[in-house]
């Protein structure tokens, strides 16, 4: 390595020697090998070049002797050339590689949820106390009839297309077995069952142990078709065709061969050590008509018993794209915004491609209404839904339900160090190393997910109650309940909401 390649470590490990008892917990806990014990000095040492600031050692240090801080060793200040950009140039100059990152876009781009405020009832219409009054958070996802029809005997036809039945308008979004661990999947599956919601297999197939959670599982079919076969398609509550992902619109997936080991290899049905490459496009889909063909081939293969979801990334023409999908025979459209997470994505794509989910959702809902086809599909949105407030805002903007992944991983212990791609996750989530995977206990993991979603459900009810609304159905697309702050005319126009004070 030449001197110019040297990048000063981003973090400093600060060890309080008055507190450190050299118990070596930090050493055992760090898969990146930051900590080591020096026999001669009887003291712990740190190699900060390896630290990713995942906070594992900090969390487990019994004497609170450790903290990780951002290094103040800095390049000369430059508003145009930020330190990250300079370091990226060094990394590429030394390697010739495409920059690879993990998790969602960390750049300070606008988060519209934070510029949208929710209404509440005062004086003229009563608010509702969810502790005392019935409140409906249950939702059904799938096609809805545009009008009531009666049979020859005058009775209402009550047969609906297949629906996903959720106790609350939230699902865990797609994360493949391979990108996350067995125990992470076990936690998600168990929690989804207990909560009466769904989790999503992602494109890595379904481990045989998890077929029993089928009615709470969405099985995904992506361009690589990993682990897709008849039993898999029939196992879930719905089938999702993945066309795109918010963190990396326009490109495929690539799970490196180093992660294709043991059960992951068997579940994906590819040999150990072989790269799992999901091509950027589906090579049989070049048009809405082709998409329709895949939708119906899945429906034929499962005898029309499963709703089919088409998942796309939020991109510039999302309204027109969604209009096409709504005519393709799909039952549900899932839209993933550009702040969505990922196990690995080229940095520049994550940070520069796609659009915010808030704008995409508002545009799509409006377009489908304008065209009179909103009932053809349910809308599920993801791409950084961080709280129950984001869920409520999304529903009021027109979503039927939300996809949540990063928040679920945080519940499992993720500290957003954004190095999932290395496979060394100290929290046992984004790794296949057995000694790390076992750190995540599915009993505890599922309980924490249940806690989180139970709390969100209650918050959703409180926020709805405050508005005098007692069901998700009455909140859906109710943009009168939203106001913008600090948004310009154009943004307000796309979101279809008034400014605060109006």
């Amino acid at each position: 390595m030449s001197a110019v390649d040297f990048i000063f470590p981003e973090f400093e490990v600060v060890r309080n020697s008055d507190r450190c008892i050299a118990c070596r917990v930090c050493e055992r806990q760090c898969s990146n090998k930051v900590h080591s014990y020096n026999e001669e000095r009887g003291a712990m040492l740190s190699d900060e070049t390896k630290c990713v600031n995942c906070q594992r050692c900090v969390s487990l240090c019994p004497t609170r002797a450790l903290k990780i801080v951002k290094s103040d060793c800095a390049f000369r200040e430059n508003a145009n050339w930020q330190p990250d950009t300079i370091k990226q140039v060094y990394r590429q100059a030394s390697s010739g590689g495409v920059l690879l990152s993990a998790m969602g876009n960390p750049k300070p781009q606008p988060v519209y949820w934070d510029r949208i405020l929710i209404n509440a009832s005062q004086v003229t219409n009563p608010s509702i106390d969810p502790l005392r009054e019935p409140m409906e958070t249950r939702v059904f996802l799938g096609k809805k009839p545009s009008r009531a029809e009666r049979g020859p005997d005058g009775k209402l036809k009550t047969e609906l297309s297949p629906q996903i039945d959720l106790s609350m308008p939230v699902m865990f979004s797609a994360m493949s077995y391979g990108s996350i661990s067995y125990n992470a999947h076990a936690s998600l599956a168990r929690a989804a069952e207990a909560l009466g919601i769904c989790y999503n297999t992602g494109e890595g197939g379904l481990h045989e142990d998890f077929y029993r959670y089928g009615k709470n599982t969405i099985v995904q079919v992506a361009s690589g078709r990993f682990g897709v076969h008849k039993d898999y398609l029939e196992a879930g509550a719905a089938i999702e065709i993945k066309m795109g992902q918010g963190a990396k619109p326009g490109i495929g997936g690539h799970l490196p061969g180093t992660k294709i080991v043991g059960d992951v290899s068997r579940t994906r049905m590819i040999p150990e050590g072989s790269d799992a490459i999901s091509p950027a496009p589906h090579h049989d889909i070049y048009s809405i008509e082709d998409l329709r063909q895949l939708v119906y081939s899945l429906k034929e293969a499962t005898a029309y018993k499963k709703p089919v979801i088409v998942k796309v990334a939020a991109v510039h023409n999302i309204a027109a794209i969604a209009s096409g999908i709504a005519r393709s025979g799909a039952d549900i459209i899932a839209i993933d915004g550009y702040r969505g997470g990922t196990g690995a994505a080229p940095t520049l794509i994550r940070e520069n491609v796609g659009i915010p989910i808030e704008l995409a959702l508002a545009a799509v809902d409006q377009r489908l209404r304008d065209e009179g086809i909103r009932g053809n599909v349910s809308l599920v949105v993801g791409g950084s839904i961080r709280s129950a407030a984001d869920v409520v805002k999304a529903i009021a903007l027109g979503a039927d339900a939300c996809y949540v992944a990063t928040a679920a991983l945080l519940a499992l212990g993720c500290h957003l160090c954004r190095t999932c791609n290395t496979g060394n996750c100290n929290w046992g989530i984004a790794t296949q190393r057995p000694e790390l995977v076992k750190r995540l206990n599915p009993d505890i993991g599922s309980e924490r997910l249940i806690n989180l979603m139970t709390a969100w459900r209650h918050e959703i009810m409180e926020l709805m109650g405050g508005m005098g609304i007692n069901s998700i159905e009455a909140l859906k697309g109710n943009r009168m309940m939203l106001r913008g702050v600090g948004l310009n005319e154009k943004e307000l126009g796309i979101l279809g909401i008034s400014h605060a004070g109006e």
Partner: protein
Amino acid sequence: MTVLDANGLDFRALGERVRAAEGDVEITNCCGQRFIGAGMSAKSIEIGGIPGNALGAYLDGAEITVRGNAQDAVGDTMNGGRIVIHGSVGDAVGYAMRGGSIFVRGNAGYRAGIHMKEYKDKVPLMVIGGCTGSFLGEYQAGGVIVVLGLGANGRRIVGNFSCTGMHGGKLFLRGDGRDVLFPAQVTARPAEEDDLAELRKYVGEYCELFGADAEEILASPFTVVTPDSKNPYKRMYVSN
């Protein structure tokens, strides 16, 4: 055997009848109905006429025979069974298939065998008697593709960009393959004794189905294409 007249039936109505039929099925007057046999196992379906796209998608053990041509996406994501086409097929035949076999007497269109894959003893096989269009075996991750080029009359038997992104499996091309431009990450070499022994099984089955002369076909040289690495993009990224 149940005989189903497809005349006037749309794909959904025909599909329901095929699913409901007990035992083997013969479909007559087939005219473009899609998805025939989707996901089926343990059934034999014989088709007179021309089936529509996605014939035998997710096929799970059934046997499908088409007396004429078939269209696009035959055997999409097929898991097991056999599809025999006595004519030619359209684009994307055997996309992502991971088991079973497809035999096409005539030609195949673009993107044949894209992303075929294998796992342990599940090794899919696709034999094309005639020629194929471009992008043959793109992203191939496993399985065996054989292109015999019968009736090519000296023309190149595959289109452009064969084996782009190939990272597993094997491709047999009849002839010395010198007129085909392969990407940098694969190796094309003349078939050796082991290869020919393997090939003999595939060609034998083809000849049994369609009545060609195996010895005559095998008398020609064959080219074998395999990938250099199962991790083609290993060196492409730098952790940021």
